[in-house]
């Protein structure tokens, strides 16, 4: 089994969001995902990074965003952790609901869930951890579509 893992910490800035997207793009391409999947994975990671920088850490220069990019034989796993107050997972509105459709925000987590096979959100008082998982081709019996 081959396993690769890259971990790093960055400031709560827009540059971090762009960097996370680029790193995800490179990591997903190297993992063998096709062009559309690479775009989906990098967008999901971008949205998680936006969540951490903007909503979690609120651009606080004293708070960091931590990233883990890990490839196992079965999955690509990207973990994004902020140092905010913890996302309230019970209050994530459905952006597809008619009353929310014309809102200008609130689509980030929806996009992560749309593009990844699994999304785990672990809030705590010291921050939120979002784990994004995409199954590597041919190593699992089914992805999101098969489970629906």
């Amino acid at each position: 089994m081959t396993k690769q893992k890259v971990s790093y910490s960055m400031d709560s800035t827009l540059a971090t969001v762009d960097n996370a997207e680029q790193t995800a793009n490179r990591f997903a391409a190297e993992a063998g995902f096709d062009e559309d999947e690479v775009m989906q994975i990098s967008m999901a990671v971008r949205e998680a990074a936006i969540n951490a920088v903007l909503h979690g850490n609120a651009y606080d220069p004293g708070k960091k965003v931590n990233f883990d990019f890990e490839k196992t034989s079965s999955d690509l796993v990207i973990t994004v952790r902020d140092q905010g107050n913890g996302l309230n997972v019970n209050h994530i509105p459905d952006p597809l609901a008619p009353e929310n459709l014309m809102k200008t925000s609130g689509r980030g987590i929806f996009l992560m869930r749309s593009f990844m096979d699994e999304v785990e959100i672990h809030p705590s008082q010291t921050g939120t951890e979002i784990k994004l998982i995409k199954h590597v081709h041919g190593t699992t019996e089914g992805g999101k579509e098969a489970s629906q």
Partner: protein
Amino acid sequence: MSMKISSRSVDGVSILDCSGRITLGEGSITLRDSVRDLLSKGQKKILLNLGDVSYIDSSGIGELVSAFTTVRNQGGELKLLNLTKKVHDLLQITKLYTVFDVKDDETSAVKAFN
């Protein structure tokens, strides 16, 4: 690649030719400023040409919604032109495709304002 917008007018319709990325930060702000600039000049028929927009994130989607609502609230109309597959797919999964008036031909899009 940052966002670039150039403006032109065809038969009373303001066309914003957008290229690059509509994302959190500069890209979204550029779009917002361009639409507000047109509205401040009384130009309320706006066609957003997204043919050269390579990427859009949730903030960019929000900015499109904001532009659409802002123009409509001022009695105007905003339509989208030449969506790339990526942008088209994003508007589909967010159920916004049917909210926006989306065109794929500039001539018919301009005529549709009248």
